[in-house]
């Protein structure tokens, strides 16, 4: 019998087995939209990192008000020019520097809140899906409850009770964004725990915690990665909304939502278009990029996805030569 085993492995060496990570990267690299989105995200991260250097080069701090150079004699903000590359706001502050510092807040809140929300979602979803019965009933109704609370109203009430702060914004965002993902995870866990390999583990004597962590969790990496990526733009927009309403980041700390709020106050955007255009575009590009990347990741991680099949059909020869 051992000679048979030897033979099993001596063959098939001419065809290289690609690892799942390598295949995913290959698929992702073929998807131009995702690669552009990734580029945009890297640019914004770079912008957030180099914010102090931008402030140093332009010589403008994000909260300093240049009432002499940054405002026209009648008190109107100056437009983009040699001194202020992206113009100034109503108090004569440099929009570019504030944009760069605002990116820090947006990314921090977006990424941090999304990861926290995913963690809660995984714990709730896996527990509900694995145990079923009363546990599932209780957790699922809790999920329904969170999803049915009008989030903006509740957020405003909370902020007005405790006063605006960064931590409170993150807490509010996390509280309102874990529920949809928990539902998806729960569904996946229910179908996973009916699979043979879970039965196999149970028949070996594995306890519930071991099955959940060792057997089920690794099979959830794809939905977790995809949903966390898709959650980031939601969190960024949520934070901008809170800041726009004056309930998020406390002024004068720059944030994109706050900058948009500044533009809308006193209808300044009628004369100073850059005050809307610059933070608005940044917000749009960031959310769009994260959404496209999340979509691309889902297609790349799931080999059976429609887009991969379409891609192969379009160029049957070229795609397969490598």
């Amino acid at each position, binding site marked *: *019998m*051992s*000679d*048979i*085993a030897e*033979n*099993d*492995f*001596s*063959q*098939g060496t*001419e*065809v290289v*087995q*690609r690892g*799942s990570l390598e*295949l995913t990267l*290959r*698929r992702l690299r073929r998807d131009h939209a995702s690669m552009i989105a990734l580029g945009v995200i890297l640019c914004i991260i770079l912008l957030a990192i180099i914010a102090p250097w931008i402030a140093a080069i332009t010589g403008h701090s994000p909260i300093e008000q240049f009432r002499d150079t940054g405002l026209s004699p009648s008190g109107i903000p100056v437009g983009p020019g040699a001194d202020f590359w992206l113009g100034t706001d109503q108090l004569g502050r440099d929009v570019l520097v504030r944009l760069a510092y605002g990116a820090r807040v947006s990314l921090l809140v977006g990424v941090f809140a999304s990861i926290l929300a995913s963690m809660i979602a995984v714990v709730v979803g896996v527990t509900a899906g694995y145990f079923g019965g009363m546990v599932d009933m209780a957790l699922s109704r809790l999920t329904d409850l969170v999803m049915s609370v009008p989030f903006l109203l509740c957020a405003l009430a909370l902020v007005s009770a405790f006063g605006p702060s960064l931590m409170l914004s993150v807490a509010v965002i996390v509280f309102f964004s874990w529920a949809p993902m928990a539902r998806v995870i729960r569904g996946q866990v229910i179908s996973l725990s009916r*699979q*043979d*390999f879970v*039965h*196999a*583990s*149970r*028949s*070996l*004597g*594995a306890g519930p915690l*071991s099955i959940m962590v*060792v*057997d089920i969790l*690794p*099979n959830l*990496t794809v939905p977790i990665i995809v949903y966390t990526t898709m959650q980031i733009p939601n969190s960024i927009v949520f934070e901008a909304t809170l800041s726009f309403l004056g309930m998020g980041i406390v002024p004068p700390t720059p944030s994109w939502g706050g900058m948009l709020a500044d533009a809308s106050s006193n209808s300044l955007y009628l004369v100073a278009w850059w005050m809307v255009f610059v933070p608005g575009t940044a917000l749009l590009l960031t959310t769009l990029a994260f959404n496209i990347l999340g979509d691309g990741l889902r297609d790349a991680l799931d*080999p059976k996805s429609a887009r*991969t*099949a379409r891609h*192969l*059909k379009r160029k*049957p*020869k070229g*795609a*397969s030569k*490598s």
Partner: protein
Amino acid sequence: MVVLEARNLTVDIPTEDGVVHAVRNVSFSIRPGSLFGIAGESGSGKSVMTQAMMGLLPNADIRGEVRFEGRNLIGLPASEMRKLRGGRIGMIFQDPLSSLHPYYTIGSQIAEVLHAHERISPEEARARVIDMLGRVGIPSPADRYDDYPHQFSGGMRQRVMIAMALILKPALIIADEPTTALDVTVQAQIVALLDDMRRDFGTTVILITHDLGLLSSVADDVMVLYAGHRLECGKAANVFRAPAHPYTAGLLRSTPASYKPGSELAPIKGRPPSLLATPVGCVFAPRCTEALPHCATQPPPLRVYSDGVESLCWLEKGAGTTAPVPPRAKATHHAGQIEPVATVENVHLTYQVGSFFGQKRTLDVLKGVDLTIGKGETVGLVGESGCGKSTLARVIAGLTPATAGTVKVLGRDMGALDASQWREMRRQIQVVFQDPFGSLNPRRRVGSIIGDPFRLHGIASGEERKAKVRHLMEIVGLNPEHYNRFPSEFSGGQRQRIGIARALALNPALIICDEPVSALDVSIQAQVLNLLRRLQRELGLTYLFISHDLSVVRHICDRIAVMQGGKIVELATAERLFADPQHPYTRTLLAASKAPPAPTGGKDRVLAETRQVAS
């Protein structure tokens, strides 16, 4: 006179990993009214080939020519193809449940086929459908016209599919593994029905199957495919009498059905090649027992023999008929009293079914089962799906508590264990699952899967565990260097070895094998069965072996229990059960399992012609 003729048909399918050469340079012709069998293991390209001919593979790159009623099917416009499908060529698929729409009645689904191809009034269509349902053997067809697919059994659904394929009286029917999903006794009925129907309607049938026994009983002509190549083709009687290609000969030898008492199965070593690679010589050369030195370097010629059999092989005389049968080391027969590992006494299992509002019903799955499994023996449990054999296994394993009766393993009552004792008992009973794909966690490495029993019972850790896992991998014939691979990198047979290694880890008193080979190809089945036997000899294991296939059970078991409707209807030693079946149900099962006839040799066969073919 031919109905369908394929010439140099080649199908390439682009995938992520490269181009899969699914079918390479296959030619064949089918006589009208004949039953043409296509045999091959999974991945041999048999299904892909017929789908390509029917225009069902839009992504594939198809070359060559397929002539049907004077027209070339390759490159035919989609609208023309649609008229042919159903109208002139009918198809029957493997799984009758998923090929029928669950929301429409079977009658309306068959009538839809009529309406799509003919102008016909609803009454007339109904009459024709009812007539056809009656002809395929559905009792009281007029009443069952308005039933839904779930109200039919698997065999009845396949009859409905056959009625649907036949309703337009097509010239050709392609049946793709029509009986694989069915029970043995039903299989025989469906094949007989297909055979009758083709005689009644004069329809030509292409029967695609991996089951050589089935083909040998009905086919007029057979074609054996391997890795997309047509290795052998000819009249069924001639091919089965004396297979010309070593692959066909090897397949026949490794079928458990051709088992003779006192012999070990002769598996085909190795496993099928990857379809991504282009071999220089013969595709089968690496696994061939009769390979010549130039087999691996030069493409084989086509040998045409005097009796019409064609073989793609370097051997001039055809394959040798005598198999290199390894002598069977006779298992030590337990004389006298043997110590029981597990005893099952009058076990009942009853489920409460019925919805919240609906009527409560009780469903008796096990109705009083008695069974004793002695140390070192293999007890087979045979029966059709739904007879309760898997449930009984779960009860013995302690995964499902019995409603009544006692299950004792190693003298301890499984029903009276507390949580920690139950966990301890997990060490003593291990299960090898049927599905080698579903029973291994796809996201974990093989080393940690096999090491799980050690981890869960806190026996060995770190380097010690690693060493034990490597040792286990060696025992079951896996390369220990593949410790860090994922299950998806192994073939079906190798995965089943992983499952066996995991079951062996804690040196259990009883291993329950739940259909361990039914998902594997014939040549691989024999490898795994031989492995199980060898392990039993060397390690003194005790097996409870569950299968629906009598021939597999006969090969491996000392005693066989036949189950029907939640009861054991017959229990006897393997040889006595086959020689002298007592219960009528056992006789039905035995009659239904078809074995290919043993090759008798083709001494009168001479080589007529040798042709070089472009590969």
